[in-house]
């Protein structure tokens, strides 16, 4: 929604530029990356993903983890140590797509205001469990490796991926 408006404005700007070249200065959003970032910060997750498909510059910017961090913690200010942990575990974009978005989606109908920080905590815990599952087994290259866990695809978050059975 927001993005459409912005895009339209961009086009309008261009048209007005075309219309009266001498009077208005040219304005291309791609020249002003900081403004672009500010705009992208306002988007929701899906729109941010769509924005990444616009052009290469937008793709680079939209993939910046900083934007996704802003998306995850928009309403809550997390403790400062979160960033290092999340980055180590795979980054905010992964956190968002794997945990925060499904959690928020599922809880959308029963959400209460006080739950937001709990949501984050829960998402982080689930994220951590998922990362743990993805870790390979280090040490011990004997034949009993297959028996250990034996899971090629970690699936502790599968319950989030299944369609909600309303």
């Amino acid at each position, binding site marked *: 929604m927001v993005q459409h408006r912005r895009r339209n404005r961009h086009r309008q700007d261009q048209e007005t530029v075309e219309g009266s070249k001498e009077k208005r200065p040219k304005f291309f959003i791609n020249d002003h990356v900081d403004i672009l970032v500010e705009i992208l910060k306002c988007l929701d997750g899906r729109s941010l993903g769509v924005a990444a498909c616009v052009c290469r510059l937008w793709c680079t910017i939209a993939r910046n983890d900083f934007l996704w961090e802003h998306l995850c913690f928009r309403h809550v200010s997390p403790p400062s140590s979160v960033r290092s942990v999340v980055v180590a575990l795979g980054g905010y974009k992964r956190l968002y797509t794997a945990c925060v978005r499904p959690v928020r989606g599922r809880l959308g109908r029963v959400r209460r205001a006080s739950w937001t920080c709990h949501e984050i905590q829960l998402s982080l815990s689930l994220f951590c469990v998922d990362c743990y599952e993805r870790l390979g087994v*280090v040490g011990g290259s004997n034949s009993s490796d297959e028996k250990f866990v034996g899971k090629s695809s970690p699936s502790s978050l599968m*319950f989030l991926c299944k369609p909600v059975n309303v």
Partner: protein
Amino acid sequence: MLSRKRIMKRDHEEIYGATGYGSGSGAKAESSSIGNPDKGKLWEEEQDAGGMDELLAVLGYKVRSSEMADVAQKLEQLEMVLGTAQEDGISHLSCDSIHYNPSDLSGWVQSMLTELNNPATSNLDPVLANSDSNSSILGQINHSEPSKAQYQQQIVVSNQSQVYSDDSEYDLRAIPGVAAYPPPKSKSDLESTRKRMKTSIGSSGSTGYGSSSSSPQEIEVSGAVTESTRPVVLIDSQETGVRLVHALMACAEAVQQDNLKLADVLVKHMGLLAASQSGAMRKVATYFAEALARRIYRIYPQDSLDPSYTDILQMHFYETCPYLKFAHFTANQAILEAFATANRVHVIDFGLKQGMQWPALMQALALRPGGPPAFRLTGIGPPQPDNTDALQQVGWKLAQLAEIIGVEFEFRGFVANSLADLEPEMLEIQPPEVEAVAVNSVFELHRLLARPGGIEKVLSSIKAMKPKILTVVEQEANHNGQVFLDRFTEALHYYSSLFDSLEGSGAAPPSQDLVMSELYLGRQICNVVACEGMDRVERHETLIQWRNRMETAGFSPVHLGSNAYKQASMLLALFAGGDGYRVEETDGCLMLGWHTRPLITTSAWQLSNTELTRELS
């Protein structure tokens, strides 16, 4: 009887194809001789408006499609009554009887039944007195009253009590069959009185779980031949569900009374009945029937199976349903709160398995304001059959994760056959000033009840470790009673709820996860029902029982805070089909249940003041 229904459903070929218990084949011979008496044969051609069933018409039987379900039931009644009346002889049928043309199946069966019910009254008194009053209204298809259903259930119960003095091999009166009470055509009434027993009415082959509201409509017989078969199965599955439960209970009673012959017959019968069900009821019944069979035939399951196999099953259980996740998250929250100010922490896990509980705790510790403490984990596990060090592998993985998130981590693994073999000195526990100790047990403590003195030894070992907190997660059921029948009944209720919840959460095609989870639970069922003595390790007890035990041993409860409650509620809301799960708080302990039935409980304990003062003195 059941195979006959199946044949009606599938082939429409032979009405009397069933040779169930010997009496069935007798019915065939007799009916053919009776069906053509020389005197008093009234031929009544019924011209009906609606279609005759085509396939049956080919064979020479005229049955209205609209009456197919009714005819099937009456045929079943007929067989039951013929079977039970066999002892008295049914020679009275060959004289003074007016029988209709057997090709008019509906009318013929009805006349047979009215004839047979009268003489057979002396045999099954209270039961058939009821059916007598019903025989006149057999023609009414849609007659159903909930009060009647319950009255018949009472009849059923009183009939059961007369049964097991008889040692006859074919005495199946323990299972009040169709002759005992004509099938009540009540639909949702029956279902509402049996909430636990969700016989999910779906189409015969597929596993589509239709909602119960749609079943009343499906009972109405529709026109086409293939469609009409489905209602036959539907009505039967409701009623066979009732009979299945009764058969299970009767079999358990027989085992309790050591009447193994009767139990044997019942177990075989249960197998057939269970096959007619679908969904959770079928699975529960199958597992319980198998466990009973093992108990009767003394084929005990070997418990010395691969522990890694059990681990794999538990992993699937972990993923499919929230019970283990709930356990981990609530226990972690309690431990986190207990470790609030400690700089060095030590967690002792009585059942490490794959270590799925600890990543979340490590992450929460890493994000603690003030930085993470030094985290030491001691994992205890069973010996592996091929001497692989599964514990060490899990420890490696946890160490990797700890390095990633920046928590100082140390791991030690201990292999022990039973927790009672542990000595606290082996664990090298530092005094409380140096490190805060937490002991965690998820579904482990109940196993110690199999060995006399086991639990007391372990609790005193725990006290010697001087933990800041002890978190215990256990099943909320009493499967450790003295009387086998009580244990059986409790287990039946408990695992029915558990399987119901699995059905509710699964996707439409049963995934491998679901199947493995059910297998995991099935092994528990087998252990509860079939094993005895030291082998029976699944000795679940309720919270009240554990509380008594803990308080006697010198522990006092720690209340799990509201954070744990909120997290748990949110976790459950995430699960598809999560509407059925309920979190309850009882005296500071959190219980996770399915609808109204609590299934697992998390509780936290600390050394009571008396214990602490005793240490100091």
